[in-house]
């Protein structure tokens, strides 16, 4: 399986599109909290925008977005490139 790839700025955009806003967190960590559901949050180490997000953090996002009904795990896999795009069946 290829390694998942997504920059932190892309992840930030994705979470924003799904209704999360960036909030302060302890130390230099970066927090996100859902606008409508305060119990729905993420906290990450201090990533630079152009840095690739570690597979373990993408895994956490994948599991939780799926569990919260915000994005199917399979869709997330496609987004981070671990599932090859399907080719149309030959006619």
């Amino acid at each position: 399986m290829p390694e998942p790839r997504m920059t932190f700025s892309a992840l930030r955009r994705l979470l924003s599109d799904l209704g999360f806003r960036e909030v302060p967190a302890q130390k230099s960590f970066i927090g996100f909290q859902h606008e409508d559901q305060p119990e729905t949050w993420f906290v990450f180490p201090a990533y630079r925008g152009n840095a690739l997000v570690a597979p373990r953090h993408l895994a956490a996002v994948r599991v939780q977005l799926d569990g919260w009904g915000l994005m199917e795990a399979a869709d997330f896999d496609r987004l981070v490139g671990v599932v090859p795009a399907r080719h149309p069946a030959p006619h």
Partner: protein
Amino acid sequence: MTRLLRKLRTREHVLADLSLNHLERHVLLSGGIVSRPYRDYGYDLMLTSFNARGEVEAGYVFFQLKATDDLPLLADGKTISWPISRRDLLLWLDEACPVILVVYDGTRDRAFWLDIQAYFAGRPSAGLFLAGQTINVHFRLSDRLNRRALREIIRRKNAARPRPTGRELPDA
């Protein structure tokens, strides 16, 4: 005739699977799940927990598993001394959620846990990285990995939540 080089299943393989099985059992009994959707250096498993309604809770816990048939006890008979690499330690100390190191004792089917960030929180950081490639951490034999321990680990995970102040952060 060429003899095929078959892969061998060693005691190390058995211990690795038993340690995973041991951790997963206690996590499942505590109402959580462990998974590894994507592989990552220095991390074996991720714990996800659920609230009383069965909904996924926020936050995550990472586990690194070690296993042995020969538990390295110090002279006091109550403390396990285990070497960890400096490279792993640097990664783990950067995490926003708990990183739990587990040592599994294959001879007695039991495991012990150590919260890496909490362990190093009270230690001066200056000396941590001056030593060699490894540094020894000490587990207490009283810190058995069981359901009570899992409840405490999940409590620590939940305490890592961001503290909203009601103000938006400026766009990065």
